[in-house]
């Protein structure tokens, strides 16, 4: 760890929280990773990105010089800083032209399509399995919905916290244990560590905002759980439909709060959602009324039964409002520019055509200065881990694994 820090040289934790996360990350980091170039990539969120990426850029332009034939050595840290700010105009016209010449090709449409398809499959599997498990759990613990809410929130928080720590600490390599598995899910592309760093370093860390997010999240969950519990398993399929009310509510709130405008087609879509919920709810209420009238009991009891179902449905609809407000508030508070680590990792060009610093530059640096980092094999595997060729296969494996789990569970149930 110390070696790694010494090598990075720019380590400057801004807050004690960052230092704590960093220490935890160091504990999780496997011994082999400490000697790899990934060590400082993983520590990226806690370093002075500008200095890091500037030096990488400088080195990369030096390396490109023979290829482009220009005076690339002139591209210094100042120019790199300008690039980081997204201006792309701090250098001379020749430098801009040079950058345009060296701009990497964007990912092919086929690859993007494949990536989208696999992430959709992953989402579909996870959504299906987790929602089913959620309902199963809720009906098992039907007498204790608040307890269920509490344990789910706490458990998920702990799981996500551990996941984030592992992501910050582990180098992404398909061949390495937990890190490889997490990479297989495509998580490395999220720059999780950087997101945590961004939140903790104050860009999003407004306590009142977090408290508001927490309150809305909690309120929505609580109302939803109570409604699902109140309606019972008979209406489980109905609740998944009513949950779609989030879409029109979000549109309405974003119109009111953010002054967003929607096209006629989008409004028509929202109207279809509302009418769809109406179509789904009204027969259920009619069915309930029919069942109540055929069942034994006083007229008051029958009316109460129908009105109770209607009331719980109304509670479920209302539970979509905090969720929608949460969506709108998050949209309002998250228009962040790309961070330096994102710039360092992503391929493609900035809107003005200038190239972004890339991971390959970082790898080139380690190739150029082998004495400072691990052997070349490690670097190659690191490149593969952070590159774009691995994602499709790994995500496919992960999706298949989820499907196998589901099938296995079904067989086990049978």
């Amino acid at each position, binding site marked *: 760890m110390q070696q790694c820090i010494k090598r990075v040289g720019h380590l400057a934790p801004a807050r004690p929280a960052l230092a704590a996360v960093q220490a935890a990350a160091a504990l999780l980091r496997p011994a082999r990773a400490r000697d790899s170039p990934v060590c400082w990539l993983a520590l990226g969120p806690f370093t002075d990105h500008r200095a890091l990426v500037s030096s990488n850029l400088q080195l990369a332009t030096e390396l490109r010089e023979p290829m482009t034939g220009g005076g690339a050595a002139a591209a210094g840290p100042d120019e790199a800083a300008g690039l980081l700010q997204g201006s792309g105009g701090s250098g001379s016209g020749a430098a801009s032209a040079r950058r345009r010449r060296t701009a990497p090709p964007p990912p092919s449409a086929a690859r993007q399509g494949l990536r*989208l398809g696999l*992430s*959709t499959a*992953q*989402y579909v599997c*996870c*959504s*299906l*399995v*987790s*929602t*089913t*498990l*959620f*309902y*199963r*759990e809720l*009906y*098992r*613990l*039907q*007498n*204790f*919905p*608040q*307890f*269920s*809410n*509490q*344990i*789910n*929130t*706490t*458990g*998920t*928080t702990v*799981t*996500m*916290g551990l*996941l984030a720590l592992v992501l910050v600490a582990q180098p992404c390599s398909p061949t390495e244990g937990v890190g490889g598995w997490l990479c297989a*899910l495509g998580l490395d*592309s999220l720059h999780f560590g950087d997101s945590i760093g961004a939140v903790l370093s104050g860009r999003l860390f407004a306590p009142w905002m*977090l408290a508001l*997010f*927490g309150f809305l*999240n909690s*309120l929505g*969950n609580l109302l939803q759980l109570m409604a699902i519990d109140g309606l019972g*398993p008979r*209406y*489980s*399929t*109905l609740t*998944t439909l009513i949950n*779609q009310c989030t*879409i029109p509510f979000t549109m309405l709130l974003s119109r009111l709060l953010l002054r967003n405008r929607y096209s006629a087609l989008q409004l028509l879509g929202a109207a279809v959602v509302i009418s*769809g919920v109406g*179509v*789904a709810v009204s027969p259920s209420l009619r069915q309930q009324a029919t069942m109540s009238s055929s069942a034994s009991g006083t007229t008051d009891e029958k009316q109460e039964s129908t009105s109770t179902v209607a009331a719980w449905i109304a509670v479920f609809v209302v539970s979509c409002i905090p969720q929608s407000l949460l969506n709108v508030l998050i949209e309002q508070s998250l228009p962040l520019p790309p961070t330096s680590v994102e710039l360092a990792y992503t391929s493609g060009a900035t809107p003005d055509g200038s190239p972004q610093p890339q991971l390959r530059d970082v790898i080139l640096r380690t190739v150029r200065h082998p004495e400072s980092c691990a052997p070349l094999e490690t670097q190659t595997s690191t490149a593969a881990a952070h590159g774009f060729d691995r994602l499709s296969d790994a995500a496919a494996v992960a999706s298949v694994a989820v499907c196998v789990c589901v099938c296995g569970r079904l067989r086990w149930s*049978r």
Partner: protein
Amino acid sequence: MNLASVPFNVVGGIVASLWQHGELAPLWEDYRCARRASKSRRVAGRRGRSRLFCCSLSDRGALCMPAYVRVHRGGWQCLDGHNSTGGTGGAGDCEGAWVDVVVFIPMGGLYIVSQILLIHFASASYMFLATAFLLPLQNVVLSWRLVMGDHKGTVTESTFVVGVICGRDRCHRAMIL
């Protein structure tokens, strides 16, 4: 955000437990007492900090905590496989409940991650679209006795897509079985 919602979950859980057990009345009375005291102080022209409740914090704790503790104790007992009537209704089906909880928590985390990934690679609109297309499938699974056991739901109109494909009656029978 989940971390931020934990304290609110505790407070919300207490309020909901009290409400479901009909024990919110004393707390409401306590609040009204404080309002009355504040009003009479204003009428008399006296100054002083207005309070939200008359009772002390420990008294309020004594009012609130039993219901909350009861719910949590019952929840843990249920996880342990013991049916308990300490919750909102009759005895539930607690046998093996811990399996569902233990499996759901990591899956819930994975779901959040896959959601973020889909938004990252595509967009939020695309995610909502995927969710909408998933609805019939989700409903089929929730109506499936094989998966949901005795807690299976009833098939709604949204499953008509599946119904059209494989014949509504046949599908319905398959789901009931």
